[in-house]
């Protein structure tokens, strides 16, 4: 059996033979609150939730008049703030860089460690995990919950169900609340939300995110991972035989079978002579949040949360067998060990790992360069179309322009506008004294766009043909930086 074949599923999960459709069966995950991976999941949840609800409260001083929230997407103000970075709407391409890094990062960890993102960090997994814990808190263990759902309605059942739903709704609202904090000043928004003073937008988005949290984590659960999520479909394309995946040691576990008689006091080698180590207790199936059987091999519905590793280890401890019948391991190791070769070790450093690291580094370098050399001021010159040109007395031609100066720093900007490429051209700016000037000084308030209507007049002799090039040369008087904007000057034939 080659390593690749070992990871192929033996049969499609949860499908009866001949059926093309399987109706959904509710999973009742057993919430086993011990084991290394369970602790890791709690830790990941604590850190990620602390980030989610905590980061909007971080402050970052940007000077007077500017928001002091470290991470803020200011929709009405058309700005996004991330610590020392401040982004204007036309710079959203920085987000592209972030998304590329996020995607490559996902490929990278998938190649190394399988679906750890799905199992430990995904929002859907975290909230589902928390919701299951709440469910277990009010309704009891897996078996108790199964019995409760079968039982007729009673006051006790109603109370348990109501308490569960109420807690879910509260958590959902909190998730919506955390989301909207990133779009407004967190302390004042919190006060406004509590006292009914916040905008309909804030309540609406809080309600919408909350509603989907409630539906997806409370009811849809593993169906999101299996049927809705696109990442689960392509993450397995990143795996190779050295990727660490949640694996069942087929060579050691099979043929499986229930234990006959007590194990205590007996030598495990006698008990398990002539049979596999799997005692078919189905603990690995019961704890699985997506309700699959890992013993069928690696499969699409496995989110790599490793809860079955904890469950199986606890059983192995009890029957006195070595741990790791279900473990985080590569198929390369599994194949080697099934041959009795225990010296084989998964290679961490593989060509694809180097490639991912190199590409991530490249994109990160490009982003750092782009952010480091980010323009703090820019100029746009829009040539007016109606009229394209106007003929004036004395054989002169006038063109109208709208000049926009983007002052992207938090202090008042002064700029000098001059022209190149058109002989004897004169500038007239509406709202500024003087006509036919060779250069004109324009001011723009801090952190805003200054819009000026500019007329440029030139003798007809200066223009050869219907259209000529014209360059607007804008000098930032405080930094000396020059921006040149190509435009044109039009006239009659």
């Amino acid at each position, binding site marked *: 059996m080659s390593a690749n074949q070992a990871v192929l599923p033996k049969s499609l999960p949860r499908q009866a033979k*001949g*059926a*093309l*459709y399987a109706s959904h069966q509710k999973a009742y995950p057993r919430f086993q609150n011990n084991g290394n991976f369970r602790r890791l999941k709690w830790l990941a949840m604590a850190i990620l939730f602390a980030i989610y609800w905590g980061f909007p409260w971080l402050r970052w001083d940007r000077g007077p008049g500017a928001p002091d929230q470290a991470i803020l997407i200011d929709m009405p103000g058309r700005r996004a703030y991330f610590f020392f970075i401040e982004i204007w709407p036309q710079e959203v391409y920085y987000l592209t860089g972030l998304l590329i890094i996020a995607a490559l990062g996902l490929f990278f960890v998938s190649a190394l460690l399988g679906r750890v993102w799905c199992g430990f960090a995904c929002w859907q997994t975290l909230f589902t995990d928390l919701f299951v814990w709440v469910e277990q808190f009010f309704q009891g263990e897996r078996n108790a919950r199964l019995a409760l759902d079968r039982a007729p309605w009673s006051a006790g059942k109603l109370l348990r169900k109501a308490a569960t739903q109420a807690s879910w709704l509260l958590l959902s609202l909190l998730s919506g609340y955390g989301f909207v904090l990133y779009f407004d000043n967190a302390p004042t928004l919190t006060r406004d939300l509590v006292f009914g003073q916040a905008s309909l937008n804030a309540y609406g988005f809080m309600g919408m995110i909350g509603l989907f949290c409630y539906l997806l984590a409370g009811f849809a659960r593993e169906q999101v991972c299996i049927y809705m999520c696109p990442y689960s479909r392509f993450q397995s394309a990143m795996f190779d035989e050295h990727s660490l995946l949640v694996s069942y040691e087929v060579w050691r576990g099979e043929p499986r079978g229930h234990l006959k008689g007590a194990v205590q006091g007996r030598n495990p080698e006698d008990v398990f002579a002539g049979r596999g180590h799997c005692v078919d207790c189905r603990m690995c199936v019961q704890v699985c949040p997506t309700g699959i059987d890992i013993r069928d091999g690696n499969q699409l519905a496995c989110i790599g949360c490793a809860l079955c590793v904890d469950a199986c280890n606890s059983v192995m401890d009890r029957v006195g067998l070595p741990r790791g019948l279900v473990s985080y391991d590569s198929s390369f190791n599994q194949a080697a060990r099934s041959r009795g070769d225990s010296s084989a070790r998964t290679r961490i450093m593989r060509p694809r790992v180097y490639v991912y690291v190199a590409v991530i580094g490249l994109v990160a370098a490009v982003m750092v360069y782009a952010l480091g050399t980010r323009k703090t001021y820019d100029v746009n010159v829009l040539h*007016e*179309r*109606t*009229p394209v040109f*106007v*003929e*004036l*007395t004395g*054989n002169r031609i*006038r063109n*109208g322009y709208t000049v926009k100066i983007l002052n992207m720093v938090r202090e008042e900007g002064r700029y000098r506008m001059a022209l190149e490429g058109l002989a004897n051209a004169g500038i007239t700016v*509406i*709202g500024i004294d003087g006509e036919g000037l060779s250069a004109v000084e324009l001011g723009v308030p801090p952190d805003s766009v200054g819009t000026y*209507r500019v*007329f440029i007049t030139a003798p007809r002799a200066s223009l050869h043909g219907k259209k000529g090039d014209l360059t607007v040369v804008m000098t930032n008087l405080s930094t000396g930086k020059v921006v040149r904007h190509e435009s044109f000057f039009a006239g009659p034939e």
Partner: protein
Amino acid sequence: MATNTEKDTVSGQYTTGHEWDGIKELNTPLPRWWVWVFYITIVWAVGYWVVYPSWPTMNGYWAGTFGWHSRTQVVQDLEQAQAAKGVYLSKLKDASLEDIIKDKDLLNFALAGGRSVFNENCAACHGVGGVGAYGFPNLADDQWLWGGTLDDIKTTITYGIRNTNPNSRQSEMPAFGGGDKLNDAQLNDLAEYVLSLSKNGTDPAAAERGRAIFSSNGCDGCHGETGEGNQAVGAPALAAGMWLYKAKEVKAQKAQIISQIQNPKGGVMPSWADRGLDDATIKELAVYVHSLGGGK
């Protein structure tokens, strides 16, 4: 009629009994939630009939308990829009044109309003952006027939030109030529002189002969000795070389000038006060036209 229904073992549903080459059709019932949404929409529709206009009656229609009407809705929307503009409009009513230009907010409001009113009422002749057309003055250049100050522009818009309003701007250029006053050769000389005023002449000898015809026929009375024009009577400045009746090619301009001397045309502009624009709107228009680039 399908009679051969049977239970499908895979899905547990009955078939419709239809069969095509061995392919049978399942009779799967609609999902319960879907059916309930359907019932709710029916109930909703009944409520809709009651509160909104719906059924025809013998002598009209059922108006609905809400009393909603699309016409009153429009009136309400218009009132709301008017109220939203109220602050600026009342300021506009009282402010002089010079005050409007100095107040940046009021200026922006007037320019925005003026642009939309211009595009609705004026652009048909003067073009979007006031570029003008053959026989319709360009409002963006620096030449004005009746004056380009804010007050001149406002007067022209309010009363119009050569219309039936007693205050409208009036003037008429007399017809020359037609054989009795000026013959064809004289017309040619006069046109050459007019072209030479803007340094576009091609025949200095003819222009020299035309100078005498220009003064003896009293052209200078309105157009000025050096062709500087007279805005009081709407006489174009011939020396500017900008033609209201502009030929497509420079060479053909002489024919246009001769035609104008023989059979003068004078454009008509309506009085926009008579057409129903109120004073504040006309102020907006005046400020907008003034801003197009030629305002004095």
